[in-house]
């Protein structure tokens, strides 16, 4: 799932990718291959898995809902 400025970078709101049992680094490699414009934002984007921020050693599976969270600005 893409939010805010990442929607423009990805050209999508929701997309599916085949990524089973991958860590964050591997997932980012796949994301950047498919959406090269995401690469420039990688340093400021956090990954969420099933509605919670992913831990450093989190493993992502095909059944997961993954969200890319750019810097937030609520309030």
């Amino acid at each position, binding site marked *: 799932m893409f*939010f*805010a400025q990442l929607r423009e970078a990805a050209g999508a709101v929701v997309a599916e990718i085949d990524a089973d049992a991958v860590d964050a680094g591997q997932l980012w490699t796949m994301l950047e291959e498919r959406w090269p414009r995401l690469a420039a934002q990688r340093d400021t984007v956090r990954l969420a898995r099933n*509605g*919670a921020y992913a831990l450093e050693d989190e493993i992502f599976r095909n059944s997961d809902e993954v*969200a890319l969270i*750019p810097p*937030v600005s*609520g*309030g």
Partner: protein
Amino acid sequence: MRIEVEVSDRLLCAAGAIGSDGVSGAVVEFAGVVRAEEHGRAIEALYYEAYEEMARSQTEKILRELERRFPCQAVRVLHRTGRVPVGEVAILVRIEAKHRAEAFGMLSAFMDRLKQDVPIWKSLA
């Protein structure tokens, strides 16, 4: 601590009835209102987008963490999404605590965390 969180496009009104359960001696209500200027530029409205399910769960998680430092009786957080015109309320936080120190402490710490960790984004409408 009772927690109520809502993230929706519902119009928010500040200054609800001030009363408590008889345990809380301090009721603090904060309204964040859209200003007519954003980054030095005149605006008519802001647009708020949220990852709603996570925004709710993340808000609850933050409040549970802060409860250890600032024990309160109740916290209600309402965040509006969609187009919010200048002068209207974007966020409403109401805190009930035994004493004002916990209530103000909770409010200040929560707003700081909201702006770091709750997946809500604003843009020019």
